[in-house]
Structures are given as C-alpha cells and as structure tokens.
C-alpha cells in the first residue's frame, strides 16, 4: 500500500490492531453471551500480542511483562472466573432484543470508529512514531465501542464485558503512547480488572438467584413482594 516501509514488528502490530477493531465490532453484533466472552478473549489476546510486538520493537522490557500479565489476567483468568461464577443457564443465554437492532448497532460502531480516527488525527499526525498512529485511534475506538456496548446491551454480562473492553482499548492506546509506564501501575490495573470480573460475576449470580433474570430493564423498580421460590 502507499505508505513507508514498516518493519516486521510494526506490520504485525498493524494486523493485530485491525483485528482488535473487528473483534470489537463482533462484540457489538453477537447475541450469545458465550460468543461475547469468546470475542473478548480474542480481543485481549490480540491486545497482548500488540504489547509484545511493541516491546520487541522499542526494546522495552516492561511491555513484555505487561503482555504476559494481560494474557494471564484477561485471556485465562477472567473467562474462567465468569464461567465459574455464573450458573450455566445464564451463560448459555442469548439476548433476544437489544436497544437497536444489530445492523444499526454495527453502523453506529463504525461511525464511532471513524469519529475516533478523526478526533485523534491531530495528535497522530504530530507524532513520528508509526505505532502511535496505529494504536491510538483504534484504542480510542475500542473504548467508545465498549461504552456503546455498555449502554445498548440489556443483559448484565455483556455490559460487564463492555467495561472490560473499554479497559482493553485504553490499554492499547496507552502502551503506544507511554511505553515506559511504571509496571506497578499496570499491575494494579490488571488486578483491578480481575476484581471487577469477580465481583460482577458474583453479583450477577446473586441477582439471578433473587430475581430469576439478569435483564437490566426489569430491575428498574424496587420490589417488595415475596417471590414464590423463596
């Protein structure tokens, strides 16, 4: 294509970042909760690979550690926690109606990605680093699409995955801009993320036990009746 020659690490990083965007689109478009979790795993794996590639490219050792922590926390630990904390009948559920139908959601997610690209372009053109120009717009796009997913979904677990996807997007942008971020800050964020998943999963389980459903719209009023199965 019509651009400067990229090194192998930068070219592979470009591919990983493009697939991260496709994974975020997929999370908006998937009805099954299991599918959303799988796409989140794929997105986190690609973000970790981007961290590893950037660490190789800039010769920053911290990014290797961050990539490995991301794999351990988000690819392995969080899906395991969610799978254990949620009973099977929530996990295999699919979301029948959403706020917008799926083609409209996809077009909105595309518009958010284009808006992120436009917003970031003054910053990106001011930087000479190739990696900043790739990671920063897509990181912001993933953040916005995660926020949209948080708003537009009705089931609790995709909303939770939306928060985690926002964190993925922020991480993706952050590793390109500030590669020498102290390791301790990123470890704190990683543990934070596991805690969110654990608490979210346990709360969802409890809500399901009490209310019989995890659909957020049905929990908008206080209920004082005693439910038959208690």
């Amino acid at each position, binding site marked *: *294509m*019509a*651009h400067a020659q*990229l090194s192998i690490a930068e*070219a*592979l990083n*470009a*591919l990983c*970042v*493009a*697939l991260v*965007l*496709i994974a975020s*689109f*997929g999370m908006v*478009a998937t009805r099954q909760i299991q599918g959303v979790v799988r796409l989140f795993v794929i997105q986190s794996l690609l973000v970790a690979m981007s961290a590893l590639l950037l660490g190789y490219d800039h010769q920053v050792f911290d990014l290797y550690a961050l990539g490995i922590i991301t794999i351990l926390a988000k690819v392995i630990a969080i899906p395991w926690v969610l799978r254990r904390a949620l009973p099977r009948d929530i996990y295999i559920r699919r979301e029948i109606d959403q706020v917008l139908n*799926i*083609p409209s959601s*996809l*077009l909105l*997610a*595309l518009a958010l*990605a*284009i808006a992120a*690209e436009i917003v970031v372009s003054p910053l990106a053109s001011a930087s000479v680093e*190739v990696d900043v*120009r*790739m990671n920063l*717009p*897509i990181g912001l796009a993933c953040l916005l699409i995660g926020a949209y997913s948080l708003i537009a979904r009705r089931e609790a677990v995709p909303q939770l995955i939306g928060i985690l996807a926002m964190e993925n997007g922020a991480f993706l942008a952050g590793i390109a801009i500030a590669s020498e971020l102290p390791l301790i800050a990123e470890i704190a964020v990683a543990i934070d993320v596991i805690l969110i998943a654990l608490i979210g999963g346990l709360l969802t389980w409890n809500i399901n036990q009490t209310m019989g459903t995890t659909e957020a719209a049905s929990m908008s009023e206080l209920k004082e009746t005693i439910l038959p199965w208690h």
Partner: protein
Amino acid sequence: MTQTIAYNVLQLLFVMVFAPLYAGVLSRLKEMVQSRRGPSIFQPYRDLWKLFHKDEIVSSETTWIYRITPYLAFILPLFVTTLIPVLTDYPLAFAFMGDMLAGGFFLSLAGFFAVLAAVDTGNPYGPMGASRTRMVGFLAEPVFMIVFFTVSFVAQSTIPYIVQQKWVASAAAFFSPAHILLLIAFLMLILAEGGKIPVDNPAGHFELAMIDESKGLEFSGRGAALMKWGGQMKFLVLTCIFLNVLLAPWGLASGHALLDVVTAVPWILLKILLFVIVLVVIESSLAKLRLFRISEFLGAAFIISVTAMIASIFPLV
C-alpha cells in the same frame, strides 16, 4: 493481436469446461466430510448432457423474458470472463472493454432477468424466491462497491488486470490489515452471491426455503441446462476474481507463448481446489442463517469492507 484473442477464447473455454467440475468437486467433498460417498465429480456433466437431450416445456402464459433468460444467464458470465484475469497475468484483447464495475453490471443483469423470469411464470414459489434473491442482492451491492473502490483506489486503476498486478505487490503486503479485511469481506460476499451456506442451502429441494435455487425452478430441457451451467459459471467467475485479483495472484502465465498459458491451467485448478477445501470447511461448520439474519451477515461484511477502506486510504490505520 490475434494471439491475445486466441487466449481470450482459451479463457472462455476454460470457464465453460471447468465450471461443472468445480461444482462437482465441491458437492463431492461436502458429502465426504459428512462420511457419505457422494456423487461422482463428473456428475454435473452428465446432468447437463441429460438436460440438453430432453424436451423443453414452456408455459403458454410466459412472455419473451422467460424464453430469453436462459441464454442471458449463460452468456453474461462469459462476458465477465473476458474482463478478468483467469489464465494470464497481462491484459488480453478484450480486457479494456470494461472494468470491474462492468463485470458487476453484467452479473446483476443476469440476476435481474432471472428474477423477472421467475416472476413471469406465475408459479407461487418463483416470486417468493425472486424477492429473497433481490434482498440478498441489494444488501450485497454496498459491499461490492466498497471493495471495488478500495482496490481501485490503491491500484490507481479499475481494470482487473492492472489491479491484480498492483494489489499484492509483495509477499509482505499480503499481511497488511487492509488486504486481510478485504479478503474476509469479499469471501462473505461470494458466499452470499453464490448462494452457499450460511446464506442459502445449495442442496436443498424445499421450495419454501429456496433463495438462489428458485431461479431455475420452472425451466426444463435446454433452458434448465443453460440456467444450471450459467449459475456454475457465475460462481467460478466470482472465485476467479477472488483468487486471481485479491487473494493469490500467483500461478498466472506471464509469458506470451501458448505453452505458458496452457501450463497455467493446472496451477489455476490447484488454487481453485485449495479454495474448494476452504469452502467445504466453511459450509460444513456453519448453519444456514435465518432469513432476516442475512442482513446482519451482510451488514458485518459491509463494515469490515469499510474498515479495510479506511485502513488503506488513511495509511497506517
């Protein structure tokens, strides 16, 4: 000049002769994956032979549209064959007659007449299948347009031969994000236009569920043979565009001698065989989509192609 015209005729013969074989190998491999024996790979040839030797029955209620459609469905994919690189690397005699937009126009002209002929007969299943085919068609058009714009913008030309030379300029360009995303989008487009799973079941006989197969329902004898053959050629043409222009423009003849062009034939057949294996894996592992989910499938293809366009027009994503 006469040499390139002869090579063009050779291309037409290649598409005409090998389209039924392509369909036969695909159905045989699909059956083998399901642990069944499946029909012989030459069965489509026998079917065409049988249909050509049968009498044609034409309803008295139909008009000239019904009579002309099989011939159009057979000839129009051949027109597109003259525009795309099938065997050679360099433009042939008729290559500048039209560009990819003309190719898309010819294919939709064939689809348009097929839909009109299906409505012409008055059979209740014909218009039902025809309206569904048009729904898939108009949802697939934006994807085709965006793919076409992207490759033409990057290659600075709309002629498929020139796009083929410039698109995958080096092995490293193969892994660029725009290329991979465009491949995914175009593959989803071929699955939709060719009536394969997950959009449509090509082996189904249930008229209520037919989308693409319904265009051949009312024809008999020679008309049915031409519609079947035309459908197989259309899918082979789309596959050649996908393989030779976008995915893997290798194996095409670069020399001008007859021997070079003839030795390119086994390489192209090998590429098509590898693509058939990928198709069989896709078709055997997915289920047919419900009708109104097809718009989600093609909507996803659309935004993947727009992302590919952004990735290639604004360099470095």
